[in-house]
């Protein structure tokens, strides 16, 4: 395992934890620094009499510390891992002490208990469940009928008046869909209202989204005639959740998964974490989403630029990329990733994906030999064939990207659609750099 400072600091819950973590990445702060095959631990002298005991599960990157902090990982965990990344020789390889063995064992036990508990939870009354499902579908269909009328109204009167609409125009419909137990559709309507009507091209963005909603309504009204994958896709879009524990019982896809990027967004109290992974053998992309509120721990800590040996289970749907980690074995040494040779291949592949699943809003792609350029006010990514796509407007690290490239082609990971992509990470001389 070899993490960079940036990768470790990306795990910090806030800026002050980063600062304190860096401060503790100092050997003099640690009275004990030891490691085994599966863990790293140390004792840090805090303000109390006894030193804090900090431990890190190296296989699954998890932290535990005896300090009273509610942050996760705490500054001690970050500091210890930073210290290890800076100089592994500072750590003595030795047998795990009891407090480390107990924690690691409890972690495995907890996982087992979780499975047992979920086994018990599974035993539900099938008749009652079917009845509930039937009632819900009825409510969803009623909500959809109202939504269709609202959309027909928009189409009849034209989009020209949409920018002048009050936010409640979208919010009220969205709320009614939540009441109709169709939270997925409610989110799609909210997206319509969140479009920036002052930006160029809002008309296409709006109409694309309206068409996606229309296709959900049309598809759902003929759901019985569709394939299982398409049925699952539509249900997910409407807002029927897939039971994660049931999913984990499905066969997983084992691979060395390269963590391509990690992005977090905070809205109110909720943090949404989007992790893009890439299977070295399967050449498959996976999106691990994690949601957590303040004080809650994310289930997994994925370090961008590292690789994990894991089984992933993909959500049911058409070419679904969203996945869950079923079992993570260890962090493994990184292998080289190989991307698409050109934008033409990326767009051909994404065109095929959209043909099968018209609700895809963006596709991930590692692309080889891309040169970022400035073209009379436009920022573009040119491939080896002299063909290019534009860099999406909200990408802020253009100068960092240009500096990394120096005018030469580099490997890039980007997410986007049609002719607009947002770079998320790059490789220079095979060194991963998050953007």
């Amino acid at each position: 395992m070899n993490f960079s400072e940036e990768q470790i600091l990306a795990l910090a819950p806030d800026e002050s934890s980063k600062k304190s973590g860096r401060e503790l990445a100092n050997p003099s702060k640690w009275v004990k620094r030891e490691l085994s095959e599966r863990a790293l631990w140390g004792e840090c002298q805090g303000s109390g009499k006894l030193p804090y005991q900090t431990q890190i599960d190296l296989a699954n990157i998890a932290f535990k510390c005896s300090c009273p902090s509610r942050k996760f990982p705490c500054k001690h965990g970050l500091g210890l891992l930073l210290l290890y990344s800076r100089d592994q020789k500072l750590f003595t390889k030795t047998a795990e002490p009891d407090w480390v063995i107990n924690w690691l064992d409890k972690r495995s036990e907890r996982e087992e208990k979780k499975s047992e508990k979920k086994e018990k939870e599974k035993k539900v009354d099938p008749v009652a469940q079917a009845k509930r499902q039937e009632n819900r579908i009825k409510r969803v269909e009623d909500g959809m009928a109202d939504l269709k009328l609202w959309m027909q109204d928009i189409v009849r009167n034209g989009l020209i008046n949409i920018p002048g609409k009050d936010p409640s125009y979208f919010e009220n419909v969205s709320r009614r869909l939540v009441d109709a137990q169709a939270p997925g559709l409610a989110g799609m309507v909210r997206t319509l209202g969140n479009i920036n009507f002052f930006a160029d091209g809002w008309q296409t963005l709006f109409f694309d989204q309206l068409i996606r909603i229309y296709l959900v309504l049309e598809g759902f009204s003929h759901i019985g005639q569709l394939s299982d994958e398409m049925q699952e896709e539509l249900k997910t879009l409407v807002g029927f959740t897939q039971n994660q524990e049931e999913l984990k019982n499905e066969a997983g896809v084992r691979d060395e998964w390269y963590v391509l990027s990690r992005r977090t967004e905070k809205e109110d109290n909720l943090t949404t974490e989007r992790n893009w992974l890439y299977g070295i053998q399967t050449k498959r992309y996976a999106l691990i989403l994690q949601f957590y509120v303040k004080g809650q721990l994310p289930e997994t800590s994925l370090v961008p630029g590292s690789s994990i040996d894991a089984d992933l289970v993909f959500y049911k749907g058409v070419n679904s990329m969203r996945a869950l980690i079923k079992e993570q074995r260890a962090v493994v040494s990184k292998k080289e990733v190989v991307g698409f040779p050109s934008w033409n291949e990326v767009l051909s592949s994404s065109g095929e994906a959209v043909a099968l699943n018209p609700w895809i809003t963006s596709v991930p792609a590692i692309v080889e030999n891309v040169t970022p350029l400035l073209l009379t006010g436009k920022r573009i990514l040119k491939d080896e064939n002299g063909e290019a796509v534009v860099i999406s407007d909200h990408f802020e690290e253009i100068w960092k990207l240009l500096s990394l490239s120096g005018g030469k082609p580099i490997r890039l990971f980007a997410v986007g659609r049609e002719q607009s992509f947002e770079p998320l990470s790059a490789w220079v001389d095979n060194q991963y750099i998050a953007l």
Partner: protein
Amino acid sequence: MKAWDEIINKALLGSEKAPLTAADLPLEITNAYDVQESPDKEDTFLKISAMANQYRQGGARPFKVTDTLLPIAHPESKEYCSKQANEMLKVVLDEDIAGLLLFWLRLCSSSNQLAHPEIIPSLLNAAQRKKEIRTIIHNVAGERGKWLCDLNPEWNFTQAQTDAARTWSEGTAEERKELLTSLRKTDPDAGRKYLESSWATEGANEKTAFLEIMKVNASDGDLVWVESLKEKAKKVNDAILALLKLIPSSAVIREYEGVLSNCVQLKTGKALLGMISKTEVVIDETYAFPESIFKTGIEKMSSNKDISDGQNIIAQLTMQVPPSFWNRHLQRTTEEIIELMQKSKQAAFYLPAIAIASVHFNDQTWTKVILEKADKDLFDRSIVALIEGLSDDERTKYALKFIERHPAEIVQLMLSNEKEWSLDLTKAILRYTAREVYQYNKQFYKQAVALIPASILNHLDSFTPSEDQRKPYWQTQRDELARLLMIKQQTLQSFNA
């Protein structure tokens, strides 16, 4: 895609005014699929649009770029700094630790290494905000930095640095002032020559501003040109006079020295019943001062009723002649002159004026003797200004000596040191800043950390203020200082590894 644009145009108008039919679809779709129109106009509109939408997305292709738009950055001739050093730079920039940024840049530059490309834009942004670090950032940003500066007009300050003549002839007023200031510090003659070359075409405001800058390292080399200037505008003439008053061999200073030579004399007489001879400084405060000196800024009348007009005029003249004049005129060493003047109440009155002249002409010999020998009460108001003119090592020595007398001013002054403070001076400063904990906050330590030796870490607890209410504040500042010092140590290690 043309068909899609037409659909969007119709969508804007609405199906009522602009219905959509299968005929609006591209032939590739209608030839391949049997497009069924429904009786509901809106439903048909959405269905047909959905097909066109799929067609558009599925057929999206990259666009062709024909020109070679960007030159490639030249290869670097120096090595990149270590990964660890790069990480430390990220910390320093993320946390905006001003003191340590310059510390890092100096280490990198003196190691003949470069910053990694990923961080160069952040460095160039820092250079944009702080002119004083542009040269060193330019140095550690290497060829990649130059390449980026060519691309980003906001960073093209490196261009200005490399082409001084062009900046002088075509630059903005601000850029020209910056150039002259920088040249006066490094090559004063070159700076003057630029000004000479364009003097006739400059406006009065520019001339005044440039003459103010010419005070930096003003010397005999400037004299012939400055004395030759004949101007109409009063403010320009005032600026010329102010500049001449900094050049010891100028006519105006020679005239002041002439007047003082006549007013101030040494008189030797007998004391102790004629057993020993006694020398004293005698000052003629009723001297008939020539009218010409009042045309060069000397005030004729005193505004203080305790100071006579004569005293006031002599004090003004004393302030404006180099202190070395007194050595020549009285034929005594600096120590002897100060001793003689301190003995006489009349002469001692003028010692603060000599201190001001020492600062004015940056006379290190007089400054040091005053700081060592003179009556501190007489010079109290000039002490900090006197220390300011000294080299870093001398400053440290006298800052330590006078910190109890002028703590706040000396702390402020010592922030401009180039070299790290001595452990003793650091202790003296922290004793004060820990006591005045509300005034010296985290921002102060961020600024000062590069000057504070890491060896102070073992002594930090000894500065805890005695007042209970100040203790928690100090604890916060102390922890911050300790953290900053650790970053400094790690930065140092990262370049020594």
